[in-house]
């Protein structure tokens, strides 16, 4: 210490005191309320120089990001006082990212949600948009059923940004090559298994269908008068015995050799636009949401068409429903600007032209007509298909369904169950029994945490 002069020592003491204070205060700074976090984040929305800044987040690939950013730019031109920052993530990591942001109070002002909207609505993180309806947010043009879809517990928490209906995508080129008749609406599940096997047998290196035991389970349940989640009674809408035949059907069809092998299903997942066998002539049929058809068609020379899902006792079980929608963060500081943005997204004709039907067909009749005028061949197939579904729904109506609470964990459980059967780890009966127990546990836990 002798190297310091007396003055230096005093200076040192001052410095020490200062830094220790800093140390103590630095920790406490982080534990402020949500307001403090919002101010400190710098990431959150703020008003600068009369301009409102919003953040918006979506999932999807680069192509979707490009069109979304274009639409955002157009919105900014039409609303010079609002600036929108876009963020996106691939669908696999999107919800983890969103959950983390919600937990830390730094979520975007507007974000997209799919069928899992119930999981977020029940946790109170979504803004009730009802007060803005008729003012900033005009819904007169929107299909009433879609408005109802986004209304949970009397609150409008999600505005559909596109509608679709699931169907069987059929690779017409492969069927022609095999010299087989192209499947048509009105077929049943026995037809489906038989045709899958026939196609696999006739063409080398082609499987009849992907295994969609889990993705198609809710459709199968509806075809048999049940459902996945009975929202009114807050209960699971099915028993173990209701799904066992479905799992047995798929196991049998797989044994007979009409289905993509479990390994291939893992390395080339059906919904991954970069790897799916749909674009490499490796599979003849599978279940997809109609809005994905154009994306797949863009990547293959083969001709893809949509056919209605094979029928069960009560019909196809498919309805025209919201594919995904816009929700606002409950803690957003600019709810009016958010409402304006959502309004623009669903009503503006120029926006509809930019966005196309990538997230589903437009939710207003006016925009649907507009897009239909100069639609691509793939889009025309989608429009034709969705109108066939709507027609069928007039005769055989099915309730719109939501994911069961704890959707992410339920999905993981369901996919694992299908693999357990596929890789021969469990008998079908055992796997289904374990699946049902797991589903009950997940449901019970997420129902109680929903309060």
């Amino acid at each position, binding site marked *: *210490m002798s190297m310091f002069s007396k003055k230096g*020592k005093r200076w*040192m*003491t001052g*410095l*020490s*005191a200062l*830094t*220790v204070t*800093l*140390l103590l205060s*630095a*920790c406490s700074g*982080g534990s402020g309320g949500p307001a403090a976090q919002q101010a400190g984040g710098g990431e959150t929305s703020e008003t600068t120089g009369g301009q409102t800044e919003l953040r918006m987040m979506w999932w999807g690939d680069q192509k979707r990001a490009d069109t979304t950013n274009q639409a955002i730019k157009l919105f900014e031109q039409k609303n010079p006082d609002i600036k929108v920052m876009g963020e996106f993530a691939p669908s*696999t*990591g999107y*919800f*983890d990212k969103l*959950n*983390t942001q*919600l*937990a830390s109070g730094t979520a975007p002002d507007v974000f997209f949600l799919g069928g899992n909207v119930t*999981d*977020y609505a029940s*946790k*109170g*993180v979504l803004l009730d948009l009802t007060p803005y309806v008729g003012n900033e947010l005009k819904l007169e043009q929107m299909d009433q059923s879609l408005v109802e879809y986004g209304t949970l517990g009397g609150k409008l928490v999600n505005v559909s940004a596109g509608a679709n209906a699931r169907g069987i995508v059929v690779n017409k080129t492969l069927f022609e090559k095999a010299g087989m008749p192209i499947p048509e609406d009105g077929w049943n599940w026995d037809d489906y298994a038989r045709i899958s096997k026939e196609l696999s047998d006739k063409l080398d290196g082609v499987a009849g269908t992907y295994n969609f035991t889990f993705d198609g389970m809710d459709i199968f349940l509806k075809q048999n008068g049940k459902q996945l989640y009975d929202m009114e009674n807050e209960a699971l809408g099915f028993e173990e015995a209701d799904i066992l035949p479905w799992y047995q059907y798929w196991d049998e069809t797989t044994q007979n050799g009409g289905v993509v092998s*479990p*390994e*291939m299903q*893992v*390395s080339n*997942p059906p919904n991954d636009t970069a790897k799916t066998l749909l674009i490499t002539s490796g599979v003849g049929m599978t279940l997809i949401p109609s809005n994905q058809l154009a994306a797949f068609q863009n990547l293959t020379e083969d001709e893809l068409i949509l056919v209605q899902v094979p029928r069960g006792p009560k019909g196809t079980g498919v309805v025209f429903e919201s594919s995904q929608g816009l929700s606002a963060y409950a803690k957003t500081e600019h709810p009016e600007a958010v409402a304006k943005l959502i309004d623009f997204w669903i009503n503006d004709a120029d926006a509809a032209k930019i966005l196309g039907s990538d997230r589903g067909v437009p939710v207003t009749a006016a925009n649907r007509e507009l897009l239909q005028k100069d639609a691509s061949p793939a889009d025309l197939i989608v429009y034709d298909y969705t109108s066939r579904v709507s027609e069928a729904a007039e005769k055989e109506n099915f309730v719109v369904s939501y994911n069961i609470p*704890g959707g*992410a*964990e339920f999905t*993981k459980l369901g*996919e*694992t169950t299908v*693999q*357990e059967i596929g*890789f021969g*780890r469990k008998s079908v009966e055992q796997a289904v029994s374990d699946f049902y127990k797991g589903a009950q546990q997940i449901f019970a*836990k*997420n129902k109680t*945490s929903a*309060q």
Partner: protein
Amino acid sequence: MKSARRRQSNWTAYAFLTPWLIGFFCLTLGPMLGSLYLSLTQYNLLSPPQWIGTENYRQIFTQDGTFTASLLLTFKYVFLSVPLRLMFALAIALALNKGIRALGIYRTVYYIPSLLGGSVAIAIVWRQIFDGSGALNQFLAWFGINGPSWISHPDYIVYTIVSLSTWQFGSAMVIFLAGLKQVPADLYEASQIDGAGKVKQFFRITLPMLSPVLFFNLVMSIINSFQAFTPAYVIGDGRGGPLDATMFYTLYLYLKGFSFFDMGYASALAWIMLVIIGAFTALVFLTSRFWVFYGDQEGR
């Protein structure tokens, strides 16, 4: 007067330690205590946590099959990858310690995988190599071997991840190399005169002299391997699949916390992992007195 001066010099020390202390208290100790509290609650990330005592731990130990499976898988990974990585590191270090020319270049080349290794990009490359139609199977096809898809079958994917971890032996190698340089040359000369061969020299001189370095590398590798996340997340499907074959412990913890809205449960999992890693480290430390030899110890 003297104690006042001492106190003052302590203050100075603390002043210089402050940046680290801020980091320790705010970024390490604080969150750790926070997670200890959360592990005793039901916390869905979005609503305030609710105290449920040791319920999470009870569920983990009595009802959670995935916990057991992911723990066993992680053990398997640690017991395979740690010895393999250390053996590779030591072998390459020995080869490089021959006084060859351009040693710096080799050292760098072998070290690069460790730098890149944690990154997502390398894991993606690994996916491409070990895919059903990837580079490895094309190579095997030359010999008429029809390889399986190493990343899509639940039986093989863990070995793909082990091989990635083995390939990242660089940092351990550099430390071994530094250790080898410290072994006095006269020990080798003396043993040569006494008639010891290369093998004997390795086991009687190199290995004992290197044991402190080996000890350090072992501890670090064990801790790192228990915490492996990126390769499992990227090479698998990010959800532990196929068939939970990539459901490493940390991945399970992550999914529980961030995807399945169960942060309380995830915190409990984290504390169990901390205890396990602590136990293993302690075990290595306890056994170290039987096999670690420090140069200043006489007559061992």
